[in-house]
């Protein structure tokens, strides 16, 4: 009798829990694959293709499906890699290529022939110009992906280092030497001599 009671009670509880779970899985059903979006959100959106995929979303899709490694994004560097590894629940892997200093594309305007090839190559529409007119790069929008350099038939696009400005300066971690630009004011010594 006791055994029967126990079986009934536990069985009943299991049944109720089962029903609740079944209802919950229906009610709180999530559509789509949120993983791709989550991975895409931690990528730097440079759209450079250095990972071997044609942009950040394709790479995120490839990672989510387990096809690509977590350490292929070069501009994202270690931070993106750690975030992706965390999302995917896999051990972190070293990023092989060093992330370079932030760069910007620069069109040498007097050499530009106005062919629009770079405009077509830019993944973020950061180059403006019309056929047979000089083209120019909108600095604030350039991601430094270098995709416009190759198509230029007259090689008039340079990648230049992004200028460091005071407003964007931040403290270095303790123990690391703060970077003081040594060449900023060449005439400073003369000034010092003339004003003291």
């Amino acid at each position: 009798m006791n055994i029967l009671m126990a079986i009934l009670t536990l069985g009943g509880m299991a049944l109720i829990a089962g029903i609740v779970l079944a209802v919950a899985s229906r009610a709180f059903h999530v559509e789509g694959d949120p993983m791709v979006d989550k991975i895409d959100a931690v990528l730097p959106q440079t759209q450079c293709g250095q990972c071997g995929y044609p942009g950040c979303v394709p790479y995120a899709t490839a990672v989510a499906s387990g096809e690509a490694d977590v350490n292929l994004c070069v501009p994202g560097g270690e931070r993106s890699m750690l975030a992706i590894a965390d999302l995917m629940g896999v051990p972190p892997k070293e990023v092989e290529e060093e992330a370079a200093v932030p760069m910007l594309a620069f069109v040498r305007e007097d050499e530009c022939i106005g062919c629009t090839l770079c405009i077509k190559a830019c993944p973020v529409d950061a180059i403006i110009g019309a056929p047979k007119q000089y083209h120019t790069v909108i600095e604030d929008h350039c991601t430094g992906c270098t995709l416009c350099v190759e198509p230029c038939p007259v090689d008039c696009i340079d990648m230049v280092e992004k200028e460091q400005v005071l407003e964007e300066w931040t403290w270095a971690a303790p123990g690391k030497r703060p970077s003081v630009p040594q060449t900023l004011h060449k005439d400073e010594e003369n000034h010092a001599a003339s004003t003291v």
Partner: protein
Amino acid sequence: MLPALFERFGLNQLWPTGGFPGGVHPPEHKITADSPIIELPLPPQLILPLKQHIGEICAPLVEVGQHVLRGQKIAKSQGYVSASVHAPTSGTVVGVQDHAVPHPSGMGRPCLMIEPDGEDRPDESRAPISDYRNEDPALIRERIRMSGIVGLGGAVFPTFIKMLRDQRHPVQTVILNGAECEPYLTCDHRLMLEHAHDVLRGMDVIMHAVNAQNGVVAIEDNKPDAIAVMRGAIEAAGMDNVEVRTLPTRYPQGGEKQLIQTITGKQVPEGRLPLHVGVLCQNVGTAKAIHDAVCLGVPLIKRVVTISGDAVPNPANVCVRIGTPIPFVLAQCGLEDLNDVRLIHGGPMMGERLPRTHVPLVKSTNGILAFHRQSLYSEQAVEEPCIRCGHCVEVCPAGLVPNELAWHCRNDQFDRGQDYNLFDCIECGCCSYVCPSHIPLVHYFRYAKGQVAKIEKERAFAELSKARSEARDNRLAREQAERAARRSKVRKQHAPAADKAAKTAEKKTDEGKTGEGKTEAVKKEGDKA
């Protein structure tokens, strides 16, 4: 809920030593407390950064070669949070160029260079408002804005913004901050002693502008002479709604939130302004500048600075034109050779070491301290592991747990850092000061705050790039669809002709084919037959 409970049981004054929790009492070293303010001569050249305040950079109004008068506006503010720049003396503009400014990065900013002509002729276009009590507060606020006045305690936030008459948050109390809790600095102390009347008038202007009922002059108890002088001046001026409050000497008593907590017992909640608790806080130097701007019509072109430190032969309080090169100021105090000397801009607790010496004195400069290299670095010991003594927790005036916070910042776990209220840290440096393991705690917090801002910026840029890349993909798809649509439309429009053409073409090929095909067909037929 909890604060209300505390209040109910009379526990809102949990900190018997006065006001805020924590704090330290470093050696005062106020060696210049008895030196009267000296007016310095004009330097051969003035360097005026176009941004000496918090907010937008100014745009120059003058050209190279132009002659300017003392007090003439030479750069105008762009945007709301900004403060214009005025010529400190009459002379010629000799350049607009990047020049190093007092900043821990050692980097430069656009500056205007002026060569004084020695005549110091004033620009008299701004009339004094002597009867300010009967003047429209909005006009007074505008005068303060036009005069380029910013908080001279070191924060350099444009003053007029704080002086808003806001119906929702009326200001009851104006607090004049004369605490000067930083060691070495004595410029506010001397201002109160020598210009008590002007300082009080400035305070009266502020009180009128924001319609405040009462005022408090807050002075630490290590300046009994200033307390006596201010009390006397208040009595002489007959300002019976203003009182002098003596505060215990404890760093950072002069921090805005700490001062308000000491005086009103109210805490300014996180992310809110003093305005929200009905208080307006202004520094003594700012009050003097407001007096000069309103009652004398003189914009902010000079300020009082303490020059001190063991490398300075004649430490002094000096009144200097803004833009004067710091080496020139130090030379006036007897310090010529800057090799082997380390300069600190501001006080020793919150000031920043200057990696470059040839920089101008700016609106935020309340002190310049020069130390011999040895005396600064001999005390600096190596960082050792935290021994969890808890001293940093005891002294933190913001109620943080610096050791835990630093742990997360060191490991670049900025999210965790923010869980530990990283952004409540006022960077007072008390924690680093007491840490027996010489952990540069406040440096970790500065680093972490910078990194958080950087990450946030990168994230915003990534979002922008993503939006632009998506817009481009959509555009390409749309263009392709349009092209396809146009093609099919053209085909439909010319449908009869095209169809005919297509058919004849088909026939032709058919015929052409049938040349060979016929035989096949014949063959097939033949087969069938």
